[in-house]
């Protein structure tokens, strides 16, 4: 769920601060035979008890040309089996400015549906960036509300004659940053539209549904490429022409039992997004797997 906050909300901070953002990660989700892993660029379509700790990123040059590093965490707790609340925070370093804590982010997310035989699932959520909770200039002086829709579709429903394509899956996310102030200290706070998608090829799915893989390491890998974009759509007339920013993030995810590790390159799509090849990585723990009888179960409505 954290991408909702650290990604989309990060985009709002990005415009305000002029910094590039590499969003934090989100939860894994299971629908039918499909595992949608937690992804770094956009949120996945599921809701679960999980913690991303840490998510770390580095960019040689952000949109302002400054060297930038960031580290963050995000924790999601299910209240009901398909509804969870999240909290996230982190810190960003910029060359010349030093380290500063980011705004605190909160979120709520509900899984709307899962069609197991079609490997199709969707969720809706809303995130809040709490302004003035930052230090050293690494946040906003206003709050930002971000509603979002996340969808995932596995290709497992393809006919067996197309077996080699069945491990493919796509996920997508759309959302909008809605600042609660049009101007802050004479600076305009634009409304941003955020969208992104991932293309992933699950070797765990290949191993379980297509053909067995002997190598115990390779059969847990999910090669993935993520695409994330942001663009101001309202209240930006004093800031110049609207420019779409974003990153393309090729990488790989390793699925452990109850955890995953992800590593992706971060390629800015234009100068306004940054320069050079960055990197983003994350350790992610699924508490529903690791602690099913305590922190890993919903507060209400648990089956056990």
């Amino acid at each position: 769920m954290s991408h909702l906050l650290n990604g989309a909300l990060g985009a709002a901070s990005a415009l305000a601060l002029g910094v590039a953002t590499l969003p934090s990660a989100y939860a894994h989700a299971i629908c039918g035979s499909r595992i949608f892993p937690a992804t770094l660029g956009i949120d996945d379509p599921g809701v679960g008890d999980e913690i991303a700790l840490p998510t770390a990123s580095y960019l040689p040059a952000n949109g302002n040309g400054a060297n930038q590093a960031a580290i963050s965490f995000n924790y999601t707790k299910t209240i009901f089996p398909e509804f969870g609340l999240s909290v996230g925070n982190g810190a960003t370093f910029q060359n010349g400015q030093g380290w500063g804590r980011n705004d605190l982010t909160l979120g709520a997310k509900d899984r709307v549906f899962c069609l197991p035989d079609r490997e199709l699932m969707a969720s809706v959520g809303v995130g809040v960036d709490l302004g003035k909770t930052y230090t050293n200039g690494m946040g906003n002086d206003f709050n930002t509300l971000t509603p979002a829709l996340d969808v995932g579709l596995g290709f497992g429903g393809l006919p067996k004659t197309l077996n080699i394509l069945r491990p493919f899956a796509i996920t997508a996310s759309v959302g909008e940053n809605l600042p609660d102030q049009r101007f802050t200290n004479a600076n305009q706070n634009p409304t941003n539209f955020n969208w992104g998608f991932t293309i992933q090829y699950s070797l765990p799915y290949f191993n379980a549904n297509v053909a067995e893989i002997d190598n115990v390491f390779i059969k847990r890998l999910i090669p993935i490429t993520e695409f994330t974009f942001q663009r101001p759509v309202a209240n930006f007339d004093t800031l110049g022409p609207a420019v779409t920013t974003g990153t393309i993030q090729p990488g790989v995810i390793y699925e452990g039992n109850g955890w995953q590790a992800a590593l992706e390159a971060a390629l800015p799509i234009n100068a306004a997004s940054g320069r050079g090849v960055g990197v983003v990585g994350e350790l992610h723990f699924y508490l529903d797997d690791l602690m099913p009888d305590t922190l890993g179960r919903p507060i209400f409505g648990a089956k056990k």
Partner: protein
Amino acid sequence: MKRYLIAFSFALLAPSAFAHAMLESASPPVGGAVESPAEIRITFSEGIEPKFSGVALSGPGGAIPIGKASVEAGDDKVLIVKVGRKLTPGTYTVKWRAVSVDTHRTQGDFAFTVK
């Protein structure tokens, strides 16, 4: 909170203790070609509850009756289902569902060929 922190620490130290049961390997092998098998064995990443887990087998002539699911003695990660009759050559599909010992549900399907 202290109890949770301790539990969390143990969970991280033993990350394979609980999780969704994922197919690790199978006999007949996923996508493989074999002689008519006497049983179907699926090895999962986690222990499973045979009472709530199962397998359905279908082939060229439709659904094929098979035995009840059980787990291997001493290893609850291995699901076993007896195949009651000799299978004729052709392509068969195994649909499985598994409930792990911590009640998480998973499912999947794969094909194998009888030579």
